[in-house]
């Protein structure tokens, strides 16, 4: 029942914010996957979107800015029986938390990481983010953003993420589908959600995205082909955002961090340990 995942707290985002759609999609994805609130952990950071754990009645950790991935990894390693979903903004994930994003694919912990990518810093009232498009005027780029955009999907691919997808906050059904696939995937699953910020990002509006996005699946993209995935991932940059593919770019099964480091369910293990032979070794 989707009600299971609703809390008494009402979201406080600006009317029209893309996060409403994202919240609906997450609740639906959890519900359709049959997840149980007590076995699910939503981990966030700091940003507008990161308030989301308070609106989903599961366990949650609302951490600090930029540290969603390691926090989620620690939780998952400690109890692999949990479904762990990290979610936060583009500033949080690509700027402050860039090093973790870079390494998450290598580690390939079985977690899902959703970025509410609104190409702006929402909570801090409209500074440029790593994904702000060139030329966009923000509080910190009054003459227009002048740095090359950070490229989340190519970076995730190079970083070794074993599930890489994009989706659009204006299309709940598409989000639900991608999220369900990502959560069901065994390994580090990254979803870049193109999310309109109605207050601070006047360029990348719902209408703007709708004109440009197309579904990879409908094009017959083969998500097991890394080279093709990279080609598609680069398309927005090569076409100057004329063509923006969404859907699953790439998917691969690879050894996870838990496969190597974790036996069983560590939290259920006895803490009584005999160290007498270790002590003898030290003598």
């Amino acid at each position, binding site marked *: 029942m989707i009600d299971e995942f609703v809390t008494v707290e009402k979201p406080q985002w600006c009317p029209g914010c893309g996060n409403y759609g994202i919240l609906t999609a997450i609740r639906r994805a959890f519900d359709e996957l049959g997840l149980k609130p007590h076995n699910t952990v939503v981990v966030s950071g*700091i940003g507008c979107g990161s308030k989301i754990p308070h609106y989903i009645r599961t366990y949650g950790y609302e951490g600090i800015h930029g*540290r969603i991935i390691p926090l989620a990894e*620690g939780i998952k390693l*400690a*109890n692999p029986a949990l479904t762990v979903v990290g979610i936060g903004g583009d500033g949080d994930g690509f700027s402050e938390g860039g090093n973790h994003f870079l390494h998450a694919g290598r580690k390939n912990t079985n977690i899902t990481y959703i970025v509410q990518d609104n190409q702006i810093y929402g909570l801090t009232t409209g500074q440029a983010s790593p994904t702000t498009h060139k030329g966009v005027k923000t509080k910190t780029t009054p003459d227009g953003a002048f740095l090359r955009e950070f490229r989340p999907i190519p970076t995730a691919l190079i970083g070794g993420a074993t599930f890489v997808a994009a989706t659009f906050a204006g299309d709940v059904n598409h989000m639900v589908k991608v999220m369900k696939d990502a959560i069901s995937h065994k390994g580090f699953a990254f979803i870049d959600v193109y999310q309109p910020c109605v207050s601070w990002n006047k360029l990348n509006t719902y209408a703007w995205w709708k004109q440009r996005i197309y579904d990879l699946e409908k094009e017959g993209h083969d998500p097991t082909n890394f080279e093709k995935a990279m080609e598609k991932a680069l398309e927005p940059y090569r076409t100057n955002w004329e063509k923006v593919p969404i859907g699953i770019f790439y998917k691969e099964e690879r050894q996870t961090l838990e496969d190597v480091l974790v036996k069983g369910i560590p*939290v259920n*293990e006895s*803490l009584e340990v005999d160290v007498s032979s270790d002590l003898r070794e030290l003598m």
Partner: protein
Amino acid sequence: MDLTIKIGGAAGQGVFVLGRTIGRLFARTGFYTFGYPEYPSLIRGGHNSYQVVVSNKKVETPLSFNSVVIALNKQAVKFHAPYISQNGILIVDESAGDVNVREDIKVVKVPTSKIINESKGSPKMANIALTGAMLPLFDFDLTILNQIIKDEFSRKGEEVVKVNQLVAKNAYEYVKEHYPNVKIELPEPVAKLKAYTSGNEAFGLGAIKGGLKFYAAYPMTPASSVLHYLVSKAKKHNLIVVQAEDEIAAANMAVGAGFAGLRSMTGTSGGGFALMTETVGMAALAETPVVFFIAQRTGPSTGMPTWTEQADLWQILGASQGEFLRIILAPGNAEQAFYLAGEALNLAEEYQLPVFVLSDKFLSESHYSMEKVESPGIRRGKIVKEGLKPLEKGERFKRYEDVEDGISPRTLPGTPNGEHVATSYEHLEDSFTTEDFKERVKQVEKRLRKLKKLKEIAFEPDVYGEGDISLVVWGSHLGPALKAKEILANKGINVKVIHFTWLYPLSKEKVENVLTDKNIIIENNRTGLFERLVRAETGITFTASIRKSNGRPLFPEQIAKAVETIVNGEFKEKEFIIKEEEFEPYEFYAPWRYE
């Protein structure tokens, strides 16, 4: 009676392996043994040394004289031979060439290459040869060394064990035959010792005994060997040990694991801890249990990475914005490191806050013979797993319930009806974020109420001996202070030693209980960091202080001399800073300048 053996050689010559082998040999024989390594921050080149201190009384400090020096090269002769005590012995590898040394010591030259060749061994076995060569001087036989060789090498095969044992035997016989009269007197062995271990290994093993299941870290001297040790034990004890991409990740992983219900820890040195700072406050506000192990080195910044100091106390006290409770512990030897590792895990879970264990290079990398192996048992605090009342629609568990002792019941993910959000924002009892002033104050007061109990359970400082004058130390400097006490007693100055392992939060009453009229505080830093903390927390001031910050620990002889000066000057001198004039003679050799 104390006896010291100094081993010196170039980095890469295996000084530490040799030192540790000799240390183990004495510890297994039944002597209290201490091992003190020194090395510059270079991988190749540079001079390494290791002092083994042996006694029939507990000893946990380096000493400023050498009964025996084992020199692996010429440089070692030059550095250490001048500080051999009268009638002491220099054992030197023949390859060091003609060593022109003092008349008042005996020289034992060992043709290690020749011995190794004749035994069909490899050049790597020079260490074993020199250990074998040392045995006749103490009238030891080969039994224990043969056993150590077996323990060390049997995984490499029977043949390797045999060859090593033969090398040891041939070197042993060589010295027996050529230097039958070179002897050093040893007292009777006295103790039954359980391990010869570094502070870091003892800490790691104590943590395992204490139920540690998760350790994430990024390498940094001198904390790295905890990571290495735990990795080596991960399979056996089902530990999750992660080398993270950076310290921020390590700290957040540890907090995540703590939230999910594992006993969890991260470890680093001051520089790495600077990066973890923000995470400390998160754990504090979200009330997630986590332990930080911090091994200090000589700062600030990169400083002198392989040397020691007690200068990061205020960094830890002040780490992260806002006001919150934390506990800081500082073990004084391997036994205490073992015990406090488990206790830190207990306190973190019981009080749901960050706990720090403060070590330094001196404690972390020195070797101690452990006599007692005590662990505090496992206490997990208020984890609720059953009997939770079903939640209404949309309702969440009151994770931050405003309870009397300030410690709210905690549920772990996986527990039905315990759903809540651990949050870095100020929050309501049911974990929703809030900016309501009344609720804010309620949570501030709730968290702060833990302090009352913490002051009750704070360990009283340990007191060693009696006297009107107290030498006050914390953490790693227990051993040097106890030896200084002994030296002073021989000069007719009776002091007691007061050792703090619980640094924060302090209970004024407990500190007052142990202090005397005249208190001299001894710290391995330049500005008296713990002295200032005690004053700030309790209003207590000290009569005088002794400090040192050249990168080495305070040596007992140095402490004794400084105390003598202060006492004889009737405490007119308030701040005794150990500078070049007070250095022990052997502090003048410069291991970083290798010729």
